[in-house]
């Protein structure tokens, strides 16, 4: 029987913090995408959640440093702690980009028909990547983490194609164009952070160093 270590309680605390953070990050991004597509003002709510995510990020960092200082973790323990710090950063960025999306929407006004299909498609795919990357981390699933990286190619392609469409057939209102381009840009960045989260999960599980950005 494995013995219980003093470090174990700290690792459980860290995991619990991160799980709560992940749930909130998912909800925050989802709310901002939904508001963009269906309309409605969720700025205050998303701002509050984004701040909470930032607060979680600081708490995870503090807890991680405490565990390193007190227990000198090594191997899987150390990788898990590093992973939690990096993943909490990704999750906090989800919140920040979600806030940026709703802020743009409020500042520049409603969007019309232009780009609705792309934003909706990118939004759905990005949400699936977020859910999959968080699930991969939660269940230590390497296959799921690898799939997130593959899915990112589809989002990138949609993003590039949409920019080309914007250049070829821009909408009449410039506000609409800016709002649309910034939103798809933020969705693309959110997807990149989901990839980071998946990579960090792979590193945590088997020490694999994945560098997707060239």
């Amino acid at each position, binding site marked *: 029987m494995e013995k219980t*270590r003093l470090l174990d309680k700290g690792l459980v605390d860290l995991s619990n913090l991160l799980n709560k953070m992940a749930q909130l990050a998912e909800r925050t991004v989802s709310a901002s995408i939904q508001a963009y597509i269906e309309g409605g003002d969720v700025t205050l709510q998303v701002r509050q959640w984004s701040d909470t995510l930032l607060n979680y990020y600081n708490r995870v960092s503090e807890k991680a440093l405490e565990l390193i200082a007190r227990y000198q973790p*090594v*191997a899987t323990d150390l990788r898990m702690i590093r992973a939690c710090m990096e993943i909490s950063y990704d999750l906090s960025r989800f919140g920040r980009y979600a806030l940026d999306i709703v802020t743009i929407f409020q500042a520049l006004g409603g969007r019309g028909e232009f780009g609705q299909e792309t934003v909706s498609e990118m939004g759905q795919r990005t949400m699936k990547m977020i859910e999959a990357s968080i699930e991969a981390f939660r269940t230590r699933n390497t296959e799921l983490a690898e799939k997130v990286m593959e899915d990112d190619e589809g989002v990138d392609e949609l993003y590039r194609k949409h920019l080309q469409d914007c250049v070829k057939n821009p909408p009449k209102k410039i506000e609409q164009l800016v709002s649309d381009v910034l939103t798809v840009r933020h969705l693309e960045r959110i997807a990149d952070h989901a990839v980071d989260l998946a990579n960090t999960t792979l590193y945590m599980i088997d020490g694999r160093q994945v560098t997707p950005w060239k």
Partner: protein
Amino acid sequence: MSEKFKIETIDLSLRFGSTEVLKKLNIGIRENCVTAIMGPSGCGKSTLIRSLNRMNDLVSSCQIEGKVLLDGANIYDPETDVVELRRRVGMVFQKPNPFPKSIYDNIAFGPRIHQMARGKELDKTVERSLRDAALWDEVKDRLRASAFSLSGGQQQRLCIARALAVRPEVLLLDEPCSALDPAATAKIESLMVALKKDYTVVVVTHNMQQAARVSDFTAFLYLGELIEYDETKSVFNYPSNKLTEDFITGRFG
């Protein structure tokens, strides 16, 4: 980091009577590096380093098979001069064990026996050894005082200085800090790292964090077998064996 093996064991097996303590160990100790040997109690780590300068010869029930090469020559060849071997491969033990003599005479003991120095030359050897062991500044004004007047940490550095006085090539340290407080431990650890410039250092330790701090390479022994041996950063970040992982993360041992 040196690629040259200063010491290499080839299929080294060792028994005390019917008890097999080391099982066909193959390990290369790199020159001018600190190599840590860790493992749970009874895994054979002290026996391993004691076999690197034939200290186990003194145990009557000990049987050894395989080879231990020092600069390519087997130290278990019958023609090996064991006294010269132990000069080349010095050893420091868990508990500081100064001779009941003055600080000066403790250091001068080896060079006198080996007729390596006398007079002013011996004074220089004593000073060099104490400086190398980071003890000179603390004892230079009381060299004639009893070695027992020193603190535990100072006594251990005195023992290291005593081992260095005969100009060894390899220094074996068997749990050198286990009887010391954190401040004295920190000094010995800094010393181990500084010494690798001129010596090949092998340290047996129960303290994994110490192995992680001071060593370039780490070997993990379990039940007389070499389970894992790699660069220290690899062993502590990405151990390749589940047993190593469980040991260093405190899941057993």
